[in-house]
């Protein structure tokens, strides 16, 4: 059964001769418990497509059905409820609410569900335990590590038992090991809870857990084989990177280097000599 069904989806920005099609006539169908990766070069329209699927943007043309509800036919005022109840969002920069504790951050979407808070408390406790956040449940986001923040964001996305998780670069700000952990969490969520997971990423490690990889370029979608890569190594952490899709790149002494994350790029910028002498 399709949880997400998008047909002839187009999103244009600007008008007349300045109009740019960020998403161009995309049709996609995503089944329950399926993990879909959307990859593509920077500026190819991946985040725009994700925003459309999540009801965060209104398409210029086309239809989107989520769990049988045509959200493009809904009024603007009805969309927040769809987002709160049917979709879980995971952002690259975590986007936790600074003033709230880990537990309150996780419970935040549950408060948007009528009468759902008591039921949600026990679910929040379960998620906190599952994600290994027991000792941090009262902590504020500023005291958490990147991996912990992303786990809180995942728990928050799951609290209302959504049909779909939409994740934008969920491993983008994490080191290799933490990124691996987050990937496995997403894998488990899809297969144990029957939740569809759509991930926009440049991170080739996630390909291992994907059921399907879609390639988006110039707003158009196409299937992509797993073996179509141009592999290289992150000079800082040594991680394998697909040079075609790498988001963090740098030209240094006439050579192009690709990085797994902004953190590695920053480290390289600080002491390039250190990493080039020990490739």
């Amino acid at each position: 059964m399709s949880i997400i069904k998008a047909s002839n989806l187009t999103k244009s920005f600007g008008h007349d001769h300045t109009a740019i099609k960020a998403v161009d006539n995309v049709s996609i169908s995503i089944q329950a418990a399926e993990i879909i990766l959307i990859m593509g070069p920077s500026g190819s329209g991946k985040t725009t497509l994700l925003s459309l699927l999540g009801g965060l943007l209104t398409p210029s043309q086309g239809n989107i059905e989520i769990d049988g509800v045509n959200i493009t036919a809904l009024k603007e005022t009805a969309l927040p409820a769809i987002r709160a109840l049917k979709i879980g969002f995971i952002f690259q920069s975590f986007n936790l609410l600074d003033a709230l504790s880990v537990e309150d951050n996780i419970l935040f979407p549950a408060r948007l569900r009528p009468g759902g808070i008591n039921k949600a408390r026990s679910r929040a406790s379960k998620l906190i335990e599952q994600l290994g956040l027991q000792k941090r449940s009262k902590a504020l986001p500023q005291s958490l590590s990147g991996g912990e923040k992303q786990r809180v964001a995942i728990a928050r996305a799951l609290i209302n038992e959504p049909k779909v998780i939409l994740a934008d670069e969920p491993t983008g700000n994490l080191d290799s090991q933490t990124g691996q952990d987050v990937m496995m969490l997403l894998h488990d969520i899809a297969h144990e809870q029957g939740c569809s997971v759509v991930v926009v990423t440049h991170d080739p490690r996630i390909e291992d857990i994907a059921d399907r990889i879609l390639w988006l370029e110039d707003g158009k979608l196409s299937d992509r084989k797993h073996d179509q890569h141009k592999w290289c190594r992150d000079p800082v952490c040594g991680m394998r990177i697909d040079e075609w899709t790498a988001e963090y790149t740098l030209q240094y002494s006439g050579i192009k280097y690709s990085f797994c994350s902004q953190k590695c790029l920053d480290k390289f910028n600080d002491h390039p000599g250190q990493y080039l002498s020990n490739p």
Partner: protein
Amino acid sequence: MLKWTWKSVFSQRGTLIGSVLGIACTFILVIFFDAVWRGESEQVVSYPAHMKPDVWVMQSGVGNMHMAMSFVWDWKADKIAKLPGVKQVTPILYLNSIVTSEQNQIFAFIVGLLPDNKRAGPWKLSAGRHIENPLETVIPDVLAKISNLNIADKIHIADKLFTIVGMSSGTYSSANPVLFVPFSDLEDLLASTGTYSYLLVDADEGTRPEVLVQRIRDEVDKVNVLTHEEFINNDYSMAIQMGVEIIVIMTIICSVLAALIVGFTSYSLVIRRRRELAIIKALGVRSINILTSVILQAIIVTSIGFGIAVFFALFILPYTTLLQPQLTLSLSLSSLTHIGMIAFIVAVLGALLPAWHVSRMEAASAYHV
């Protein structure tokens, strides 16, 4: 949502303290100017207000005391005294003049009192005694303090030298301090005989002032006769126009400034929270709830700032008169309530514009913040 609204206000303590102190300082300034304006407004008519006769009689065409000149023949006073319903007529002579001491020059109201006229004299002495002899004067105690004058010091009123024999309380305002001198000395200064300036008429018990006013108008020509309320209203309007206008202008400027500061603080609070507002919108919070939350936050911050200002106004502001005795402050619950209501309206208005922006913001911008 309420929990987040409340907690996020207090999460950025530096921002909160800055905003609250900015708002508090502004409201302290507004409350201060309002208190000065009210105090000065009350004080500017303190002499006629304390005299409180039932009826005031003055020269035809004159309707108040502030900066006015009036002459009424003495026989008219005798005629009024004999009218039915009149209990007592107290005449005074009155002059606006410059008072010169060694330290400074000051504009003042000079009231000439007939011997043994306690009815129209100073109602409370803080030092010395009433005038008894020629060329004696009773001056306001605040004037004595700011001009460094003491009992037995000399001051010039026009070209006459007077000796200070007493100091009165409640007779000072920055627009018109009231000095008392013997009637005959003021008569000399004015070079007039057989005339008074104002007649303070007290009615017999059971005689209504309005009836007495009409009776005097019918019987005495070329005088203006007013009830005490009418006279005070005229005097107050004139004094406000001439003396207190500058304070009114300063109060208005300060209030506009306060509105701008409160509005700007509300605005910047919302702008700083733009990131989180975009996130909660993406998570499914309705625009109307975001709008409410933003306005609530502005009200919370303004309330704390206003609370600090009220505390300061009630417990610290009154002590400013120790440093500046010429200030007359009048704080009232109604004026604080009035300023408070304006504060909340301004806070809400200040929050509306950025809140409107945020409520219209695409939820997708959460991906870019």
